[in-house]
């Protein structure tokens, strides 16, 4: 089938299993948010799907086992942005976004007119045109996150793995970035997996949520199914209220324990 399928996936570093028994089916063009407390294994799961940490079990993308793909072919199919990307300060935005074309080039090849056209198109779509010649170090936090997204988009992969894409962004910039991801998903039919700390934002943008706790999936389903007061309270060890807005969105509000 088209989309992303995981069956009994386990992954970790140097003998220590950080995440295990993860299975789910995602139709192409859908958005899954991986949520869970700190250290639950969210980032490791994303890295496992990207092929960046060793994993067992089965990961199939559009019917193909990703483990069988050569590195460059996998990079053409899966785009990945880490939680804290290393930003090469001196590079210009265009230079940086051009790096996204790497999997489409031979080891010693140079970018051609087609690559430059794709980068120009991505910059225009992400409203980075005016910043194209600027060094990355001169950008604001929000602009940087957009540049990172642009680099991933230049890969033209059908699956986007975004680890905490709103880290360090204020509420407005976070919203703008997620709106952008959603628009790209609608326009390109891309499949999106993000980790998100902000449960309210996760509920508004993702079709489905996967809640990890201590490396194991404990709930999976629609935001209405997963974001229930007792589930969130237990797995985050937090006192919360889960409200539903007039438009039907779940909102998770931390509440101070009664003394």
């Amino acid at each position, binding site marked *: 089938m088209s989309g992303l399928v995981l069956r009994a996936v386990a992954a970790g570093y140097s003998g220590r299993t950080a995440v295990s028994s993860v299975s789910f089916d995602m139709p192409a063009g859908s958005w899954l948010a991986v949520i869970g407390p700190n250290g639950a294994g969210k980032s490791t799961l994303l*890295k496992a799907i*990207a*092929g*960046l940490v060793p994993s067992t079990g089965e990961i199939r993308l559009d019917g193909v086992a990703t483990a069988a793909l050569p*590195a*460059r*072919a*996998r*990079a*053409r199919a*899966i*785009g*990945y*942005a*880490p939680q804290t*990307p*290393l*930003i*090469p*300060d*001196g*590079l*210009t*935005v*265009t*230079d*940086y976004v*051009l*790096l*996204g074309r*790497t*999997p489409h*080039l031979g*080891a*010693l090849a*140079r970018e051609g007119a087609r690559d*430059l056209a794709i*980068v*120009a198109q991505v910059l225009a779509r992400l409203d980075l045109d005016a910043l*194209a*010649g600027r*060094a990355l*170090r001169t950008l604001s936090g929000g602009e940087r996150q957009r540049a990172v997204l642009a*680099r991933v988009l230049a*890969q033209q992969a059908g699956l986007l793995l975004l680890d905490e894409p709103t880290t360090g962004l204020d509420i407005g910039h976070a919203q703008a970035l997620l709106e952008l991801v959603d628009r790209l998903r609608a326009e390109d039919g891309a499949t999106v997996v993000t980790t998100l700390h902000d449960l309210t934002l996760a509920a508004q943008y993702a079709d489905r949520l996967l809640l990890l706790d201590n490396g194991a999936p404990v709930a999976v389903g629609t935001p209405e199914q997963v974001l229930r007061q007792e589930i969130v309270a237990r797995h985050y060890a937090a006192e919360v209220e889960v409200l539903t807005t007039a438009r039907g969105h779940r909102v998770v509000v931390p509440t101070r324990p009664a003394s």
Partner: protein
Amino acid sequence: MDTRRTRLTPLVLAAGVLALLAAVTVSTLLGAAELGWTRVAREIVAQVTGGVSPLSEREAAIVWQVRLPRVLLAGLVGAALAVSGAAFQGVFRNPLADPYLLGAAAGAGMAATIVVVAAPAAADWVIGPLPLAAFAGALGGVGLTWLLGRSAGGGTAVLLLSGVAVAAFLTAIQTFAQQLNTDTIKQVYTWMLGGLNTSGWHEVLLTLPYIAVAAVVLCLSARLLDVLAVGDDEAASLGVRPGRVRLYVLLAASLATAAAVAVSGLIGFVGIVVPHVVRLLAGASYRVVVPLSLLGGAVFLIVADQLARTVVAPAELPIGVITAFTGAPFFVLVLRTNRDRVR
């Protein structure tokens, strides 16, 4: 036409090549032996056109057998050190990385000291064992660092720390050997300061293949060095194997460094300053930093050697003194005029 990406424009490349040609020409025309630059120029024209030269046979030999090979060797060594410095800075994502970082300098220093101590007359041998020992010592030092780093889990930080450990260990051996033979300290010290005063065509031909191969490999790897700058995970997610890129980039850079050290001793500053000046003037992408460091390093060392052999002629200054004395203020000047590009 996209002008927003950093690339080596034909104009910049032509300017670099012209600067190199100018440096080679001026340095060949002027030297410690006062032959008169117009007479040297006429000699060169005569050689090319088959005309009559104004120089005596001995004077012509100074130009063709002493000056020209020395100028070319300075260019080769400068290019090798600068491009290796750029490559090391890329691999380690560290602006302070220089070509001597992984034990090349300590290895060469130790091997050279042992040769000087064990065979004080070695400098007079027909084929000097000193360059060979320095070459092997430099590669041995880097190899040791690589093995140690890999056994400790790999990674750039571990490799850097291994380099520190290997350098300290090899330097200890060198100091010990030197202390047992204090009469050779001056000879060892002179070698360590670096210089090109023993250069001839033999040295040029000896180093050329290594430096040429390394230069080609590093120029071809420039785009991948940009990819390494985003970190190992992201590089891998772009289909690049960071460990493999690091291995062949370090191998090429170390080969060039070892070849340079073998014929010129330890010349500091070139490997750090030249790539940074290039970055500040032309951009941070390795697509421009690598090729322009090659050209810039060659020009810088040719000019430095020109000063080393003429400032206190007929004596010579150690070239390391010149590279630091002229390079440091120039570097500060470039830093100051590009304040907004430096953090």
